């Protein structure tokens, strides 16, 4: 990976790391369980994007398989959390 690409990928990684901070804040503060579930959803998305960027940064394309699996896991986790939020209400 040549020089400009490394700088570009590092900038993207920093942006992703900064956008993880509101996720953590929303996970801690709430105020409802649905907010925490939404924050966890976004956190998984940010993590998947970061893994994809790392696959290019480290020139290790096998990490893209992890992104594919993580997409499925994020969807299943969201649906399971939705059921949990629904069941908590009664």
């Amino acid at each position, binding site marked *: *990976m*040549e020089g*400009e*690409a490394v700088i*570009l*990928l590092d*900038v*993207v990684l920093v*942006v*992703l790391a*900064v*956008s*993880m*901070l*509101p*996720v953590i*804040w*929303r996970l801690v*503060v*709430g*105020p*409802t*369980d*649905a*907010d925490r*579930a*939404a*924050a966890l*959803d*976004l956190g998984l*998305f*940010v993590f*998947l*994007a970061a893994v*994809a*960027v790392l*696959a*290019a940064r480290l*020139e290790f*394309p096998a990490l*893209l*398989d992890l*992104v*594919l699996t993580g*997409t*499925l896991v*994020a*969807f299943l986790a*969201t*649906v399971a*959390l*939705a*059921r949990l*939020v*629904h069941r*908590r*209400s009664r």
Partner: protein
Amino acid sequence: MRTVLAAIPLLVGAGLIAVSSLGLLRLPDVYNRMNAVAKAASLGVVCVLLGVLVLLFDPRSAGVVTVAVALQLLSAPVGGYALAVAAYRAGSPLAAVTRYDDLADADADADADADADAATPEVEPRAGRRERPPCGDGLDGPAGG
């Protein structure tokens, strides 16, 4: 050249994810935040994946990224919708600026239909919508847990 070509989707995707994160921080209620997460963040992940594919192009990565993008575009709206409906059923407060609550009307209509089917004409119509306290900045809603 390839770096410049990859920079466009990578920066667009990172910007979309950052905007989505800002929306999670600033938007007033659960439904608006879910909107930011389900749309902007999934599109941001798709853009980042396409940018990564431009940077390291080989056929196997292309196949994996195609499947991941398709799965993301299919599953993220479904998950966001499921979570938003679950939040509504759990009684999350609507923002004070909410003007239309079609789901409450639908629930009231369903209740009215159920009452009509029960064939008890003297039963009084149920109060369809639950009491929802408005939540001003999203921080003073009821703690949910």
